[in-house]
């Protein structure tokens, strides 16, 4: 397990299967993005750089912080909503 997976393993989620609440609008925009800063800044490591230069997003471990939406301010390429009520991260302690 990677470092971040070990951390997220301690967290409780109710995953809304096949209904990701965050989506990349246009993969081609990511391929041209200078820093691809979402791959660094997401505290759950949800964004990863692919071999073909695009960026993949897996929202299952999302902590719902909003960072990816705010730091993608040059391209506004992140479509971001809250999960449906009751789904997503469920903090035990916060």
């Amino acid at each position, binding site marked *: 397990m990677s470092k971040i997976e070990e*951390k997220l393993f301690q967290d409780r989620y109710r995953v809304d299967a096949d209904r990701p609440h965050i989506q990349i609008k246009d993969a081609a925009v990511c391929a041209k993005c200078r820093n691809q800063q979402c791959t660094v800044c997401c505290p759950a490591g949800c964004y990863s750089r692919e071999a073909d230069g695009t960026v993949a997003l897996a929202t299952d471990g999302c902590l719902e912080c909003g960072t990816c939406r705010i730091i993608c301010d040059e391209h506004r390429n992140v479509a971001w909503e809250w*999960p*449906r009520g*009751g789904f997503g991260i469920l903090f*035990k302690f*916060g």
Partner: protein
Amino acid sequence: MAEKFDVIVVGAGMAGNAAAYTLAKGGLKVLQIERGETPGSKNVQGAILYADAIEKIIPDFRDDAPLERHLIEQRVWVMDDASYMGTHYRSEDFNKPPYNRYTIIRVHFDQWFNKKAREAGVLTICETTVTDLLIEGGKVVGVRTDRKGGEIRADAVILADGANSRLAVKAGFQPEIKPENVALAVKEIHFLPQETIEARFNIGEEEGVVIEMAGKISAGMMGTGFLYTNKESITLGVGCMLSDFKEQKVTPYELLDRMKAHPSIAPLIAGSEMKEYAAHLIPEGGYHAIPQVYGEGWMIAGDAGQFVNGLHREGSNLAMTTGMLAAQTLIELKVAGKPFSAANLAGYKQKLDDSFVMKDLKKYRRMPEIFHKNKQFFTTYPDLLSKAAQTLIRVDGVDKKSKEKEIRKSFVESRSLFGLIGDAFKFWRAVE
């Protein structure tokens, strides 16, 4: 739901619970909507609870609120990779009830606070996300939720939906958050036997310690670290501005792991069991980032309105106070039989201006910009201070006068004399 309410409160965090509780006590019919499974399940805090704010809302909160430890000692550490230099302030005065500051576990506290609100008459529905405000003729008349047939109407809506206020942005009440106005904090909670915590921090039962950290811990970014003692756990984390995070290559969790591995921190959490990792935004834009906080039929309270005093790490108390003031404004209007129009809700802004909330935020209005433009406070100075301390403390046959000279030289070489004086002035302007 065909029922109509006086007020809908979005969110069951600090601001939402304070608003809903106050409204219900004031006799208004309140619906509170929360997207989490329970109140608190989406919320993250360090966390210090300042007694004053909650006391104004629930005077006898100490009787049954889930409080961890009252704080008797504050440590401030400036760190480089190997050392810390710090001030510790501990006083027996902090051991005299009624205590002033407590550590809390946020999820537990929110559940308690919301229970109080429900007991006061608030109807809280959880597991429901508000997706839009209902706006008719420029006036907010209710909300739309993600439940079937989920339109609900009310005379006013209080947005207490936290740092990522999607609703205010969607309705055009405020622009999208800028990376330079918000910090991302990551934290973990580590469990240890109560006696171990008390021995490591030199504290008695129910006594607590706070450590605030600055310096290398933020990897050159504008940011700080924190460590708080709870009853049987330690909360620690680090937060930095998003505008800095996006320009560098260290992930938030690497930053946290480096902090945990620091030789001054590692022994404090050695042998503990990590039970949760969390991340959350903290609005840090200060006074100049505060948006319009009221309009026709709507008000904003708490983090959604950027009400955070970053320098003093105060947020929950501002959230509670703004929630309470928003509620009091509505109660007064209701009693006077006046509508919740923008002109009448301007009374909320007046209350804010008269309270410590706006006075403090105004006092520190220059701080965010000064720290943004002067990264030396987070990079050069921690190193210089640490080296200076080492030079003075080490006994190595060099005379004290030469040592002082060497220290002076190291400061002037890194920042120049004008730079040093300028920095002192800037720091003073930031907190003056």
